[in-house]
């Protein structure tokens, strides 16, 4: 399997779930290409956005959502989770590993959350490798 030297990760996140400034400073120090996409609420994520992130070269995509009982829009996190689950089925249909896409509850008070999430994603990608494209 081809090793990923510098994985491309796209993170969609609710603006209420992470401290973007802190996250950017952390990302800066890591050997990962991270694209951060802020959403007013994670429920605005759609299958087409997630698929296009993969088309744009992401090796992994994650949607960071508020804890379900802390969503300012009440059901935003639940909606986002359902949309991710649907998109995972599409990934399975087209032969991409579902593990490349995840939805993760994050509390803005947990300042180390994004760091841990990225570590886990990178660890997962070391098993999955880059997206397979026929030679």
């Amino acid at each position, binding site marked *: 399997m081809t090793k990923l030297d510098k994985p491309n990760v796209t993170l969609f996140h609710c603006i209420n779930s992470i401290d973007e400034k802190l996250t950017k400073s952390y990302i800066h120090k890591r050997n990962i290409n991270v694209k951060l996409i802020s959403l007013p609420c994670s429920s605005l994520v*759609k*299958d*087409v956005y997630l*698929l*296009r992130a*993969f*088309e744009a070269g992401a090796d992994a995509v994650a949607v960071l959502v508020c804890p379900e009982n802390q969503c300012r829009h009440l059901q935003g996190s639940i909606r986002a989770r359902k949309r991710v689950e649907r998109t995972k089925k*599409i990934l399975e*249909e*087209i*032969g*991409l590993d579902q593990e490349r896409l995840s939805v993760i509850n994050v509390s803005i008070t947990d300042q180390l959350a994004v760091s841990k999430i990225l570590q886990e994603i990178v660890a997962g990608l070391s098993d999955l490798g880059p*997206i*397979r*494209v*026929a*030679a």
Partner: protein
Amino acid sequence: MIVGEQKPVREIIDTIIRYKKLLILGCGTCVKTCFVGGEDEVAALASALRLALKQEDRKIEIEEQTVERQCENEFIQEAANAVARNEAVLSLACGAGVQALAKRFGDTPVLPGVNTTFIGIQQKPGLFTEECQGCGNCVLAVFGGICPITRCSKKLLNGPCGGSQKGRCEINPETECAWQLIIDRLTLLGQHKNLRAYIPPKNWQPSISGGPRKYIREDHII
């Protein structure tokens, strides 16, 4: 509205595999409402197909467009240039839309991306239920606005049957007993005497069993 479901992506790939330039054409009316054929679904399917075919090293150019209504020539016309630029059209409309396209663009293959399922309504976001079978002779006035032909599993016109249990159908307990609904509604409307009337066997001639149907409005035909 007409309710449909998108075909599995793998089945769609099998039908488009011979084409290098494909137009995915959505329909902005019924199938958009049931999240199958609007702009968003066209974009998501195009993306999924590009990703799938890229992995198989198959090159394809996909153009995306959605017209207001695929079953009417005036709206289809808007897609004429895009159709001309492509080798085939993948339609995300109901069967009527697919056939209207095939008729309008006779020399271009038109492929269905949707399985048309029923005429229904949206009960709540994400839940669509069948309400009408287009039998050609509406009897809803007698049954309090609830169609036993569509919603009773046995299509009973003189119900209920003995299998109605706690308002549920014995064929599928997830289905509400149409006859329980009819009785409740007629009672609410003060029309329960309708229940005493014998309904004679239905004339199915106006339904599809008489072959493809036509509706003619002479005053609109020149």
